[in-house]
């Protein structure tokens, strides 16, 4: 490939092979107008926003984070608080503390609510990120998991603002299949732009070899913080979209189960590449829908397998197998775009 291609075409080259099939599939699904199919596709694509978000940090830095769902949760609650219709707010939040009382007095349109929620989550991500990006390996895993628990506890216990263990209701249900598609396209574009940007390359350099990265003056905490913040904001977009898609949710919606799904999707697909994040979601989602159907209604000649938790167990098993047989995931860190290049160059060399 000509290495003089502008940065612009490089990220398009990376994102287009992922975005195009997603758009096509979405259009096809929209045409069938099958409600359950539309639902599944929407959920899968919203999840994909979160997984792509996680990939931006973990994939490029090589540092695992279990905290991305915490940021999705913060954004979902923030956007809900901002967009619930003004007439419902007093009855839903009778004990809103004084310094937050302004929230009860107005309500934003959903898109504005999502944008503000994502920006707010970005600020939280910077504050949390400054200390956290200094950790790697096991410590990073434990610390981000601990952060998830902290957010969970605060949200379940801060009844006056979050309605505690009761569900958030009255959240405008405006997100549709098309919103989900828009979210995914945006997330993939952001991830692709970051990956080919200088900051992205520097972050990958710290993943590849931290010593060498330091020897050429790359500041590891600084590059990680940039990736972390962007990553959390994309995950936040997914969270806010999810909130407006399901419209009633509680802290348990964004708990360990969702975290497990998001991390499993990224690891199974391949942490090192954007393609891996997309493929991981598709594979895991198709498999889990398959087993969920088996669990609840059976499939054709196959009778109902009455075994609650079957889906989660099968997923855990697949995750284990992938970790053992192919630790770098299905894609092994390559992009669809690389595959095109390779085919082209092998053709060129054979002719």
């Amino acid at each position, binding site marked *: 490939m000509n290495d003089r291609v502008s940065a612009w075409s490089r990220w398009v080259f990376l994102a287009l092979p992922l975005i195009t099939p997603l758009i096509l599939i979405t259009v096809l699904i929209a045409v069938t107008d099958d409600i359950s199919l539309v639902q599944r596709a929407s959920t899968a694509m919203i999840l994909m926003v979160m997984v792509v978000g996680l990939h931006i940090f973990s994939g490029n830095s090589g540092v695992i984070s279990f905290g991305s769902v915490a940021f999705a949760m913060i954004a979902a609650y923030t956007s809900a608080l901002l967009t619930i219709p003004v007439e419902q707010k007093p009855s839903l939040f009778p004990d809103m503390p004084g310094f937050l009382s302004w929230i009860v007095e107005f309500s934003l349109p959903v898109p504005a609510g999502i944008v503000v929620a994502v920006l707010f989550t970005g600020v939280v991500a910077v504050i949390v990120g400054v200390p956290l990006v200094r950790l790697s390996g096991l410590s990073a895993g434990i610390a981000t998991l601990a952060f998830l628990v902290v957010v969970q506890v605060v949200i379940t216990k801060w009844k006056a603002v979050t309605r505690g263990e009761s569900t958030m209701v009255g959240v405008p249900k405006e997100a549709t299949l098309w919103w989900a598609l828009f979210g995914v396209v945006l997330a993939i574009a952001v991830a692709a732009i970051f990956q080919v940007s200088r900051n992205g390359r520097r972050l*990958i350099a710290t993943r590849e070899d931290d010593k*060498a990265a330091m020897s050429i003056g790359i500041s590891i905490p600084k590059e990680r913080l940039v990736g972390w913040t962007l990553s959390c904001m994309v995950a936040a977009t997914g969270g806010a979209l999810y909130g407006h898609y399901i419209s009633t949710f509680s802290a348990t919606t964004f708990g360990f189960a969702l975290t497990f799904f998001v991390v499993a999707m990224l690891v199974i697909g391949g942490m090192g590449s954007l393609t891996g994040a997309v493929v991981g979601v598709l594979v895991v989602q198709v498999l889990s829908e398959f087993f969920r159907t088996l669990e609840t209604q059976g499939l054709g000649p196959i009778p109902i397998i009455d075994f609650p938790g079957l889906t989660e167990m099968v997923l855990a098993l697949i995750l284990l197998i992938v970790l053992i047989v192919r630790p770098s995931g299905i894609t092994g860190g390559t992009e669809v775009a690389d595959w095109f290049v390779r085919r082209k160059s092998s053709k060129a060399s054979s002719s």
Partner: protein
Amino acid sequence: MSLLKLDQISISYGRAVAVKGLDIHVDEGEFVSLIGHNGVGKSSTVKAIAGVVRPTSGSIWFKDRDITQMDPGGILRMGIAVVPEGRHIFARLTVRENLVVGATISRDRSANLKNLDSMIDRFPVLGKYSGRMAGLLSGGEQQQLAIARALMSSPSMLLLDEPSLGLAPLIVQQVFDLLKELNEQGVSILLIEQNAAQAIVASDRYYVMRTGGVISTEARGGDQVDVAKIESDYLNFGTV
């Protein structure tokens, strides 16, 4: 006037003394080698100059400034680029991207691009494989890439830690020839090596380091040196 001067440098890790009272200097435009066996404190010395490890005592001067307490970024900005031991290239970035991230400390994009072009001129093999993953290059090519990447920060001095490690003798010769060429173009070089003979021939001057980082020999290098004699001396130092 010395460009780089180590004044009575001692480095210890807890109770283990790695380097004791080391005095070396590199003048402007000089090519100096620091040779010695494994475990005599060569790598600790590199790390101290690069700012990765703090010396327990003594001071390091570069361009008449005390850089002993500077962080690695500051030292790089002062003009010392380090090629770390073991060819630390970024395997899953392309050759070109490796070079681009090498210019991290400079914000002048047009200067960086010019620099990139001059690297590709100087290292044709890097130009040829510029879009290829760096991990696919051969050992010698990776070493060239590591050196080119270090040069992307336009350093006045290059500090190399065992660039010959794991390379075939012929390739080592090529790497050393390259260093000589760079030196002639004005980059001062401090080469840390186990591979004594080839390093000595390439350099203007050399130090032989013994256990604890004590300098046992300082002599002029170059082609006219009796390498066989040095080698036997050098081997003897190791057995003392």
